[in-house]
């Protein structure tokens, strides 16, 4: 099973974190720091798998973002690379050519999508269509229960009076 997934930028800023095992905040920060330093120091063309404690780290870089997963010894590294890729595809399809900012500002969508794709550290649904359908259904529910706002309001140019 996967123990955690981290997304961070080339500058080492953490953009998304998903923990499938319970750790204290302190521990999470330490792990993140260690891994970010370790992975940023690696050169391109190096092997995407690293032995780390009793886990295996699988990472891949997409433009300015690094995706990094920790899996157990018995897990399949290559398939983990494809888990990352499938997640990127999902994000890409949903946001339409996703960029780092999309993930920063729409982190909740990124989380919801990950929950549809993986649960408890195991792959739940590998079909892109099914995951996106589920997210689309959520968005539909959102629209139903929220009154539409004008474009300018959304942009914040016209103030609604709520800061």
């Amino acid at each position, binding site marked *: 099973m996967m123990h955690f997934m981290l997304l961070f930028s080339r500058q080492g800023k953490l953009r998304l974190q998903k923990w499938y095992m319970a750790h204290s905040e302190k521990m999470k920060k330490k792990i993140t720091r260690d891994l970010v330093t370790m992975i940023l120091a690696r050169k391109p063309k190096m092997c995407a*798998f690293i032995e780390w404690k009793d886990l295996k780290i699988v990472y891949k870089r997409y433009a300015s973002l690094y995706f990094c997963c920790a899996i157990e010894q018995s897990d399949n590294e290559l398939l983990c690379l494809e888990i990352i890729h499938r997640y990127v595809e999902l994000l890409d399809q949903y946001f339409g050519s996703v960029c780092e900012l999309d993930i920063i500002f729409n982190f909740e969508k990124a989380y919801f999508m990950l929950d549809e794709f993986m649960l408890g550290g195991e792959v739940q649904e590998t079909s892109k269509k099914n995951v996106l359908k589920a997210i689309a259904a959520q968005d539909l529910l959102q629209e139903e229960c929220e009154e539409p706002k004008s474009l300018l309001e959304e942009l914040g140019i016209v103030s609604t009076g709520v800061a």
Partner: protein
Amino acid sequence: VLFAPLTFVLPPPANAKQHASAFQFFFGKLQHIGQFSLETFANQLSLAKVEHHGSAGAVRTSRLLVAALLLNRRLCSFPIVIIEGVLIFVIVSNIVVAEIVVADDEMSQLILLLLVFWSGLHSLISLLLLLLTARSSGSKRLSANMGKSKEAEEKRINKELANIRSKFKGDKALDGYQKKKYVCKLLFIFLLGNDIDFGHMEAVNLLNSNKYTEKQIGYLFISVLISENNELMRLVQQNLKNDLASRNPVHVNLALECIANIGSKEMAEMFAPEIPKLLVMGDAGDTVKQSAALCLLKLFRTAPEMVPMGDWTSRVIHLLNDQHMGVVTAAVSLIEALVKRNPDDFKGCVSLSISRLARIVTSSYTDLQDYTYYFVPAPWLSVKLLRLLQNYPPPEDTTVRNRLAECLETILNKAVEPPKSKKVQHSNAKNAVLFEAISLIIHMDSDPSLLVRACSQLGQFLSNRETNLRYLALESMCLLATSEFSHDAVKRHQETVVTALKSERDVSVRQRAVDLLYAMCDRSNAEEIVGEMLTYLETADYSIRGELVLKIAILAEKYASDYTWYVDTILNLIRLAGDFVSEEVWYRAYAAKTVFEALEAPACHENMVKVGGYILGEFGNLIAGDARSSPSTQFQLLHGKFHLCSPPTRALLLSAYIKLVNLFPEIREDIIAVLESDANLRNSNVEIQQRASEYLSLARNSTQDVLATVLEEMPPFPERESSILAQLRKKKPAVEDAIRVRGEKQQQRPASGAADGAAASAPIAATPASGGGGGVKLQGDIAGAESNTDSDLLGLDFGGSAPAAAAGGGGAGGGSVDLLSSILDVGVSSSSSSSAAPSAASGASAQRKTVVVGAGASGSIVGEENWHKFVCKNSGVLYENDILQVGVKCDYQQSSGRIVVYYGNKTPAPLAQFASVINLPDSSLTNQLGIQVKPVGDRVGASEQVNESSEMDSATFFQHWKQLSQPEQECQKIFQAKFPMDAETTKTKILGFGFSLLSNIDSNPANFVGAGIVQTKSGNIGSLFRLEPNQQAQMYRLTVHSIKPGVSKRLCELLETQI
């Protein structure tokens, strides 16, 4: 391109003039750079990065960055653009779309101007609009202002937090939308790396909302931010319970996902009984089933005891047949976890998953629609199924097994088909399935042809372009090398692996290559592999040197067939790992320390002095730190032996001295004094004279540098070395290599026979040899010197010499078990001596059961102690060291007995040429142990005697007691207790000894009273005893009455040793 917006692409300039003026304009602003050139620019840029501390630095960096952007337009396309504290996102296509967040306004204006300059006025409006957006909308505004600096960011965040706090505390009740908004903002701030200490309650409140998104944000906040022991968890769990029971599947799903995300023990307790229903209930939707399966899995992993097994468990494996591939994918993970805990209960899943797998691998990539991933049908499900099967042995049913073999073959076949796509995703997914299939093949380890095919497939990957594949191939091959079917196939790739070791750029891949070489090493290729590893060690990455050194050492030890090779290897290792300071240094330090200790012995062999001189000269510095082996002590120690040695040794010592001059300048004067003494400088021996004078001038006149060069650490010096090594070899243990007896060999040595006169028992006394097992280390040599047995040193030689008969009489027979293992030269000679009967005339001795009455054994104390154990016990361990365990088991019938000697091989390797010999000094009877029952000559023969316990009542007892109370029949002893006086233990011992214990006979219940019969070939001897413990004095009084006078005495003596 993914994340395309982060790539900086400027539009082509309208013309060259415009381009040039852009630079002019820009560099007008950056006057401090002065004369422009590409080089200075690049330098400035890197300088700025270094100096980038305060805000002034930040401004400068951002200016330079913009300049770099412009430059890069000429140089290459360059994805930039985030620098800590200064965020610049520039996205330019044919219309300008820019999001610019810069530290100071001046810069924003500058960039704006530049962009306008390039793209023309028409896009200005959209640009402005976007800038405004960036500045004022919700979270975006937050981040926009965050650019300024760390402090400004903190300030902004604190302000925002204060705002949210006041909203939460304010009088005005917030509506759901507002609550959601602020909770979301808090999450955002948390994810930026700040601590959040409020808002939890509001998040929990959101769970009560009927609106999906509010609920969803609430759950997200809880999953990310609330730790499992938070007091709000109760409330959360109540909400979860409501949502689980909801009729709306999306709410059920939200709850399941939240439980799976947190998965605490409490949740397991509360929800584990509920969730199985969702899983196997017919009407639950597919998505609910999927989430339920994985949610249950999470709870099962947290607290397996909380998940009740029951009806659902038998139904859960049928989910493998579910039509919905997503449900199967989720369910397999759960099933695997259940199987791991309880394989037998889920055996049915084997055939189900094989047929599911067969359907997948034989389907074309169009069949499975969206579950096909880059032309690979359902890779995730396939891998999970293959992993599930790794929890079981190969299926017993032949149809099922063939079906599985077909699947695996199909997967292997697909690997060699031309790829359906050039995308890396295609090959990754395909190979992921392949590697998992190979893991299963290795796990089953039953089909040689599949194993060999797997190996050749992996061999191809070894030279694949993809680093990842090479890495994985090396890793999997390690496993293949452990299977006897594919070990040879793996060995064929040795050359490729060696090349990988030399040429791979990634150290982790080289590490795998080392692992594989280690795994594929056997006697046939050991020299080559170790040679390659040694070569690699010279250039190896520091991070893996430690492990590498160990691996080389282990292989060298394990597969050394030639002693010189072994020593050369180890010396090379020492030389190469020389500067590599880590625990490996112990090899050298250990050698130095060991010889130092050996030299400290008052008398030591001249060869030891030679070895010591050599080693201290080379590595003495390693132990100089210890006050007990300071430089001058080392020198004194060597020199102390100098005058006792022959000229060649003296010459060698002189060389050692000059080396010490190099290692320890502080003892230079002492050594010069020795060198210039007449005894050396004018020695009649030309060699000594010459060395002394040459070394003298070297020590006197050379600088430290010259000394260091001349007296550098020795490379292996085969010629002179060999003479010392030859000596060493004799004494060293040859390596475990020689040991060829697989598993345990058990030998029986039944001894029976009649002794008509003296009853002899065959004692087995083992004496560990004085020079115990040597090791690979130099100490073997030292041990050898001291070992005085004629068996070769190395081994265990525990030879006990036959004890002489104690009581004097009778013909003593001796039996000795001698096991010799030729290479190891293990001589185990345990001698047994027969004991003489106390009274030769009577012909019956009162020997105790096993063994040993033997008398004044000259065997070592250890041996004595060991065999004494068997007075009260019928079985036990006689001797044990690192290599061998010798156990004894005896049983007795009437006057004959059987002693079984067990030899246990404790090494992982087999013991070769193992033989055991029964050595009977008196009759020179030798009994091959392998041969069953060979009658032993009657003199030796052992009529082992057994005391049979007898039962009698009080009256009978005292009657007999009195009958046997003649002075010579009675033997009484008063002695100190040797063990704690515990009644129960004593009882066990007495029963073990062979006496019966008779209760209610003695008036004092603390006393032990009993009877027994010593049976001999010539007749039975009844004996009675009474043991009176005295707790205060820790003493016993033991009285034994027996028909034969000697017997009482002997029994008394024996019992005395035991209690």
